[in-house]
């Protein structure tokens, strides 16, 4: 069961059982709703942006341990980042999930524990769900502020 321990590191199970940053933000600067067509899991992501910086971020929805832990870790590491660094963060995580780079703890924080997921292609979608939602969220925010002001 080495594989299992590798995938479900203690840190992951901990984030799964004790979700950080869970819920919705009233008056969010941007929100998205993503779902995983493979399993039907859903993710609501809200961000609050002030001065180009994510001052609050919350994720909601149900899903498996990997998707829930990934969302929990995301809210921790993304909170306080400016939008550009947040996008870099997502991109680094995406590349890690596709096995293209090794995970960097300095960048990812607790989410470094998700590195083992890369070996399980179906679960990669679970881990990426909330992270790619953040990318969408930022894109949506920028579009809205660019056109609406």
């Amino acid at each position, binding site marked *: *069961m*080495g*594989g*299992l321990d590798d*995938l*479900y590191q203690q840190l992951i*199970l901990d984030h799964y*059982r004790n979700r950080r940053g869970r819920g919705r933000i009233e008056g969010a600067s941007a929100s998205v709703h993503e779902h995983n067509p*493979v*399993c*039907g*899991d*859903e993710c609501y992501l809200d961000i609050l942006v002030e001065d180009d910086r994510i001052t609050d971020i919350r994720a909601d929805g*149900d*899903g*498996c*341990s*990997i*998707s*829930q832990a990934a969302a929990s870790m995301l809210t921790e590491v993304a909170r306080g980042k400016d939008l550009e660094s947040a996008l870099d963060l997502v991109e680094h995580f995406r590349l890690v999930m596709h096995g293209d780079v090794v995970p960097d703890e300095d960048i990812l924080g607790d989410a470094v524990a998700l590195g083992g997921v890369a070996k*399980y292609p*179906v*679960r990669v979608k*679970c881990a990426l769900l909330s992270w790619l939602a953040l990318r969408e969220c930022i894109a949506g925010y920028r579009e809205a502020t660019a056109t609406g002001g």
Partner: protein
Amino acid sequence: MGDSTHTALDARAIRAEFPILSSPRPGADGVHYLDSAATSQKPERVLDAMDAYYRETNANVHRGVYEMAAEATQRFEAGRDAVARLVNHPREGTIFTKNATEAINLVAWAWGVRELREGDEVLVTMMEHHSNTVPWQIVAGITGATVRFCPLTPEGDLDMDALRAMLGDRTRMVAVVHVSNTLGTINPVEEIVSMAHDVGALTMVDATQSVPHMPVDATAIGSDFLAFTGHKMCGPTGIGVLAAQPGRLEDMEPFLGGGEMISDVTTEGSTWNDIPWKFEAGTPPIAEAVGLGEAARFLGEIGPERIRSHEMAIAQQMLDALDDIPGVTVLGPRDIARRGASVSFTLDGVHPHDIGQFLDSRGVCVRAGHHCTKPLMRHLGVQSTARASAYLYTTDEDITALHDALAGCRAWFGAP
């Protein structure tokens, strides 16, 4: 076959005919494959039949005068005969497609696009697989027809009263699954077909989950169309079957155009080949038909009745094993006589994906997800389930392994 139905099937002996089930996978002592509703494993003789075709007599069919081509044609058409025989259907109404999905789409496009009008209704059920839902939605989108969903009873049966009430003048097609891949429910398709015919509607029976597992008599069911797929019935991928009423096919315009399905082609227009070939455009799945024919012979020799009896016993063991785990909820009918051996369940506090992953580490393969039945999932109020599904090679050891792995899974995730 008559006699064999009275002796129980020896699943252990049958298992030995399936190479993959005896070759241990890394990290597990043998594989407990409980995902046959997604795809079945293949017996050696099916693999050998295809391999022999390629090594001995591979050639394109129907047109070659040389001996190898004639032999290829003979093996290909013998595959059709074997499949037709298994479901008691005339060979000329037995069309090879690429999978069950294409078989249903063939009717949706060839008949539906040309015949459906605004105001017409296609009736499907809330437990249909996407393959018997989405084609009708697409064609409805093109023609302006409406797709309506027949609801279910709380136990997961089709609500026959509701169905009766929904049938009417506007109903042009009733498309219904024979056995639900998610709930296991067996639907009374003969009755539904006759109700549909009474209002002048055509009928499509999705027999994908019944043909592999029980006696299916297409003639007795009497539907205009009946679809199933090769890879779930011990056959290869890349082939499915549409068993249609020959007369219906004669009247229909073709679907895919190309080689083989024509009688004559001119710059002014074309005329069509006889059925079934009129609906088989291009080079057919030749090796696949050879393999599927062998699979049909294999199932016929064992006997669909015996397979069904075996699976009823296994389904009961499965329900008992699942009931023994605290926090497990089983979906679908509990009465073994009214269900197949595909059992969906949830486990409190553990997501189906995590169940699937954990069970895999114990060598137990189950599916986790929406099983291509999202309308049903919404109707049941769940996002996904775990599903264990059995076949003729499933033994009580597989069920014990499922039970023990599920117990381990609860502990590992600290479920309530």
